[in-house]
């Protein structure tokens, strides 16, 4: 096929299909009108309305706390899982661990949410912990499913890493723990940052699992938005969505930049 207009046109259609809804949402978040679909001039009044809405601000704070805690926990646990899978050779139950660590990637969220809810309830009945559902249960649930993503990212970096780096450190007198902190951790650090950012955005976005395992006083931002939308779409939701898109886009872009830059340096550095 001759290089003509076909390819650019197809690409443009693809991009429109993907991003037109988001662009229209951003545009309408600056709409003066109360009616979401009628343009009545530029205004930032919905952003002002948003920042004076106590319910939304409260939910945003809850979501940030949950996202921060579960991303951090998922990064620690996911890294450990990846390390065991990538470096400990063959051991009993390796296949089971691989499956379990990555299952949440393919598991429908409804099922993850429901099974976690059942687990929390039966745990509470058996040994009284966690007492009720709230912030803690959402954090645990989000850690579980974010862990899978971190484990995959950290695992691929560990497999790319030249294992002789670790052997060299060992050869020079470092014990296994020392090797991890001196060599492995600094080398895979970019992947862990990227994994943390991804986990953070995943947790921030999640509605389904949170709806199952959250309790009174711990409504996350997506839960609040969803309940507001059910009463009719109000323009301040557009404003909120725009802010979230910006945050998510920025962190994913950061993660991407960190990963690709490191990958390039990694190949040059040998």
């Amino acid at each position, binding site marked *: 096929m001759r290089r003509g207009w076909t390819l650019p046109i197809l690409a443009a259609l693809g991009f429109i299909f993907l991003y037109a809804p988001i662009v229209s949402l951003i545009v309408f978040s600056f709409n003066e009108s109360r009616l979401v679909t009628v343009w009545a001039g530029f205004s930032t009044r919905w952003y002002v309305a948003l920042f004076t809405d106590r319910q939304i601000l409260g939910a945003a704070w809850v979501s940030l706390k949950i996202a921060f805690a579960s991303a951090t926990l998922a990064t620690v646990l996911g890294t450990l899982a990846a390390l065991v899978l990538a470096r400990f050779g063959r051991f009993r139950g390796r296949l089971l661990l691989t499956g379990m660590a990555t299952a949440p990637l393919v598991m429908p969220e409804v099922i993850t949410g429901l099974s976690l809810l059942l687990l929390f309830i039966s745990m509470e009945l058996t040994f009284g912990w966690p007492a009720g559902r709230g912030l803690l249960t959402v954090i645990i649930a989000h850690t579980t499913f974010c862990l899978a993503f971190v484990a995959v990212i950290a695992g691929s970096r560990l497999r790319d890493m*030249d294992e*002789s*780096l670790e*052997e*060299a*450190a*060992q*050869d*020079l*007198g*470092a*014990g296994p723990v*020392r090797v991890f902190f*001196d*060599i492995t951790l*600094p*080398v895979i650090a970019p992947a862990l940052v990227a994994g943390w950012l991804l986990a953070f955005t995943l947790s921030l976005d999640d509605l389904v699992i949170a709806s199952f395992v959250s309790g009174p006083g711990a409504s996350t931002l997506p839960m609040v938005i969803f309940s507001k939308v059910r009463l009719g779409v109000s323009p301040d939701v557009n404003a909120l969505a725009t802010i979230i898109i910006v945050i998510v886009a920025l962190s994913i872009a950061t993660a991407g930049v960190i990963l690709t830059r490191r990958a390039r*340096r*990694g190949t*040059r*550095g*040998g």
Partner: protein
Amino acid sequence: MTDTRLAADTRPWRDAQARPFISIRGLSKRFGDFTAVDTVDLDIYRGELFCLLGASGCGKSTLLRMLAGFEKPSEGTVTIDGQDMSSVPPHRRPTNMMFQSYALFPHMTVERNVAYGLLREGMRKADAMERVAEMLKLVKLGHLARRKPDQLSGGQRQRVALARALIKQPKLLLLDEPLGALDKKLREETQFELIRIQETLGVTFIVVTHDQDEAMTLSTRIGVMSEGEIVQIGEPREIYETPATRHVADFIGSVNLIEGRVDVAAGDQMRIDTREAGPVLVSPRAGLSRGQTVWIALRPERIALSRSKPEGTANLHRVTVEDMGYMGYLSSYRIRLPSGRLLRASQSNRLRDEDPISWDEEVWASWQPMACRVLTE
């Protein structure tokens, strides 16, 4: 008297009384059904530069990794300086290793890379840095101390890796294809640099390589490996001149192998009957019986080509030049014997304005009985 003493001092393996520094006994490594290293016995002496030479996959790297402690032997023992290594983990062994990939820590400067071993030993940072500066001077990298590995050229990285492996003054340095990643010219320079450093520090080196030229230039002794076994151990000259098997003869340098049967095995010469080159006179070798199948190994440079018939040469043939390659310092020929067998021959180009023997010429090819090495396996 002084001569033999000197020889014994610099070549302890010739002295039956000498105590080996590293002693490997019955060492094997199996991965599932595959035997990577098969019951290797090897003695290495203090101050040696020993090369393990073999094609890729022959088990030489696995053997090296067992010495460093990265692989657990399936059987056998390694003793270094009288100490059994079986239960010693890599970070407590008196060895250091230079990796084929160099394995420089990408997040540390050259200086920190080299200092790493000393700092792990618990040396004070100021003292460590002093030693590092000295070591970097030895490998001529003092000016690059603050660079990161990805800002260095291949040759510079190689020297950082060497400095890092030497800084703890190990009793034994293991080098896995140390020059493998360098281009030809740099490799030749670095070979002599490596020997200089080894002699300055007096450390025992074991080098793994697949490059026979490298092994010949570097080593005091070579161990030729094939399919997990050491097939021959000897000084470079021994390996080249008296290879133990056809495999070794073929692997080290190039060689013509002619199959034949022992005809007369008496006197100061022996005759081998061959189909391809008729009767061939060779220097006698003990332990051969009449009628036994043997192979004659004949190096190309031992075949003399001339236009005029040489006098008094035992093995003389009228041959046709099939092919010729001019390589500057020598010319290599493919010559056809009357039987149709092609042999490789080479002539060094000593004179500048010679009229060289060329394609399709009929010339005389001859070789001395002592140029032939008779092989039985």
